[in-house]
């Protein structure tokens, strides 16, 4: 277990008066609408299991009402799960007492929220230091730490401002700094950038990528924006009606959509930006095919490989991470992916 930073098994959330009694009954296989009509219960999250590796950026994606925001709250028990377990490393979060849980929230998991959730009566520096104050650190320590975080997210000079004097993007940087201040092992993001306009959103996404490189935290990132999911995620979990529809690397999602729902979803995505050569190559007809041609790794993204393949007359060989010859691509294979998008 310990190789996962976060491990979720058979997690359920059912909203309603007798939710607990419902677990394990066949009623839960009904559609949402039927269940609501029959017993007044609503399924928020349905039998979800996954693992997040240390240092991984794990994205949960779905449309509104898919249960993704409920899921992220179950992970820190801001909403109590109806059934299932959540392990944080070796310890079971779902078995903790209130007090232990508070300790986890204070030191191990932090969260960034969609609407920032900054306290309007506190200055930026005191908002950033709020978590430290809560866990009882003295003023000098928390001021110093908060100042570091403010600098880290690029807000130096705004320490004495109040939240409502900042733009949306800056407010979310404060939210980010607050989450980082307690130096948690895991950062959770609940649609942190949906309230921001597109340009600022792109900046903030780059900021997250930068921070991930710098501090290397494990991240669980909730979004309804596929482009954002593809951009940030090492792996993506797609949810619908509280269920997992598909889970995999971005190129797996684009290259092999699990069903029509996902296929429809990904139809607008520029495939050449996501797909790797693995998804466009074909089996070599013989171990000697294209001998002497340049070799590219199978994890190279099509867009990046395009120039090399097109510049070379004829086939290009594709090798896996061990250097073994696994396939070939030609201009035709590349163009099919690139041109298909323009039509």
């Amino acid at each position: 277990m310990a190789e996962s930073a976060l491990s979720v098994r058979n997690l359920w959330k059912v909203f309603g008066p007798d939710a607990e009694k419902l677990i394990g009954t066949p009623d839960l296989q009904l559609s949402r609408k039927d269940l609501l009509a029959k017993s007044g219960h609503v399924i928020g999250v349905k039998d979800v299991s996954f693992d997040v590796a240390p240092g991984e950026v794990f994205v949960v994606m779905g449309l509104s009402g898919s249960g993704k925001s409920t899921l992220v709250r179950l992970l820190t028990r801001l909403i109590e799960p109806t059934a299932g377990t959540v392990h944080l490393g070796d310890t079971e979060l779902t078995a903790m007492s209130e007090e232990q849980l508070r300790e986890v929230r204070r030191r191990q998991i932090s969260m960034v929220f969609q609407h920032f959730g900054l306290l309007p009566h506190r200055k930026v520096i005191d908002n950033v230091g709020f978590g430290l104050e809560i866990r009882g650190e003295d003023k000098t320590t928390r001021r110093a730490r908060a100042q570091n975080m403010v600098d880290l997210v690029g807000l130096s000079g705004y320490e004495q401002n109040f939240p409502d004097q900042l733009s949306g993007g800056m407010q979310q940087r404060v939210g980010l700094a607050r989450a980082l201040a307690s130096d948690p092992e895991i950062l959770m993001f609940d649609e942190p950038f949906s309230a921001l306009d597109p340009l600022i959103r792109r900046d903030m996404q780059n900021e997250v990528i930068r921070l991930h490189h710098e501090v290397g935290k494990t991240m669980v990132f909730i979004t309804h924006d596929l482009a954002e999911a593809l951009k940030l995620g090492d792996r993506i979990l797609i949810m619908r009606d509280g269920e997992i529809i598909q889970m995999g690397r971005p190129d797996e999602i684009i290259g092999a959509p699990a069903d029509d729902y996902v296929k429809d979803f990904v139809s607008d995505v520029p495939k050449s930006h996501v797909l790797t050569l693995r998804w466009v190559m074909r089996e070599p007809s013989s171990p000697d095919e294209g001998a002497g041609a340049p070799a590219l790794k199978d994890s190279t993204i099509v867009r990046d490989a395009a120039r090399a393949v097109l510049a070379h007359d004829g086939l290009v060989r594709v090798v896996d991470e061990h250097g073994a010859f696994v396939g070939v691509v030609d201009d035709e294979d590349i163009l099919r992916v690139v041109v298909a998008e323009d039509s």
Partner: protein
Amino acid sequence: MSAPTVIRQGRAADAPPVLAEPTPRWKPALAVVAVWFLVWWFTKGTDTLVLAGRDQTPVMKTMAAFRDEMIAGRSTNPVMVVTGAIADALRGLVAWLQRLISIPADPRPVPIIGWLGVTAIATWISYAVANWRIALLTLGTFLSFGVFGYWSDSMDLLIVVLVAVTISVLIGLPLGILAGTSKRANSIIEPILDFLQTMPTFVYLLPIVLFFGIGASSAVVSTLAYAVPPLIRISAHGIRTVNPAMIEVTNSLGQTSWQRLLKVQLPLAKRTIIVGLNQTTLAALSMATIASFVDGPGLGRPVLDGLRINDVGKGLVPGLLIVAMAIMLDRLTTAASERSDVIARGGGLPNALHKRILIGGGVLAVVAVFVSRQQFWAAEFPDLGIGRAIARSADGIVDSIVSTISPVTEGIKNVITYGLLNPMQAFIAESPWWLAALGISAIGFVIGGLRGLIPTVVALAGIWYFGLWHSAMITLVMTLVATLLCMVLAVVIGVAMARRKSVDTLVRPLLDAGQTIPAFVYLIPCLALFGPTRFTGIVASIAYAAPAAIKLVADGVRGVSPTTMEAVRSTGASTMQQIRKVQLPMAKASLVLATNQGLLFVLAMAVISGMVGAGALGYDVVLGSFRSEEWGKGAAAGLSIVLLGIMLDRIARRAAEAAPAGSQRRRFSNRGI
């Protein structure tokens, strides 16, 4: 009346239910009145249960006996011992404060701190918690207390208010926090507050006098009882309405519930809580003035003296000083709440300068206190005789104004009295009691169904039992007439305000001022204009209830969305059509709420106006509050008023429930006396 029928036919399961057209309720109500009228025609004047002058029923005598027994057991009855001890403590506290700033402190011929010292301290505090403008206002107000010759009475009133407000905060804030954070606590506290606020406050006085004795103790307790509900309600509301997202965010950082309260909920609700403090302070002032009925110290006394002998001039100056005090307290608490925001944000004057002014002012205040202990002129305000002069000339001026406009006022008075008041009184109060009871119950049923009928029947039975049926019916008639007029006023002015920005800018400050003025003061001009009659009471009630009702109507009508109005105008509707067919129907919930509020305010005022000629139940209560042999009757009258209030409130509430949901607002304070 049954709940609206739900029709579901061939619709998607999640589509909203279709409602059947409701049957209008005014039709059966009209039928009830028609039958009532028919029976009345043949039976009027019989069985009206008139209780002659000094007569008392056995029930009243029993209550008087109960009172005598309680008083006799003052040193043995555990309840009386406890309340007696509290009363002594309050009396001692008030007396100590009085010696400090208002009355001669033996062996000195003057208070411990003279007027100069008190004024300087008050001004300095105003500057510290608010700003220099408020400090000037305070300075002017305090000086006017002295200049007009009412220094001692003003200080006494301020003492009662401050003691009551301080205790209100000590009791109200914890309870408010409890009600705001715990659903279970709220479900206990809320109904009690509802009941307290339905009760016309004047009737508190009788039981409070019984348990706490007359004087400062009763004044503080009754003021407290009246002032604490708004604080509890508003602070609970403030805490409850803290953005839940904020709670979730801070929970995610691992806070304890105690940290949540201190670091998140209280700071975020602070603004609202100070609004509650403002309401509580004004309510306290209003009630503390009225506590002069039970010999409470303060400016209410000279007003009451003037009203008792219908001497307007005598009550005018202290009345105006009460208004001045109200304005000062209102602005001070409001500015203090704004100031706290400014300070928190590092605004206001540059810190160093502000600090210097504060220290300088503090030194000045200390010097002033010292001087006021040494110099007689600074200890006792020199008698300038201005107050008396004004009182004398006020009589002349008031007389000449009244005689000039008396054709108009007399006209209004006669139209209302002969056109509305007398016929209605003849109808309801001259009906045999069983007929009136049946008629009122039937109307309660028509409007509120079983949940309207049951409280109505219980309340009527109680009124019958307490033996003041005829008086109760007269009070009911006056309440209904005043509410009706109040609503006419509210609709006319409210619609005008909502439709024209200029009218709103003109009228709203007047309404705000009207809501700040303690109820008692309204009686003075009404008495001057209309003399001691039933109509005077009605006018005072309207003056008192109208500001809130007008505001509710104006806000409700303005709440109709501009896009709707645009669409209506595009159909070519005339102004009257716009008002009648769109704005008023869409503001129906506000109208019902305004009526509900108006009823309770009017009923509350009906008691006070009992002493300016309105008679009926109000008169009995007033009499009972200062004549011990009438205590039993006064108590019966007080309870009858409470029952009337509960009955009207329940019926009005059922009516409000049937109105479109969503536009109903919580009642914070009903400011009513």
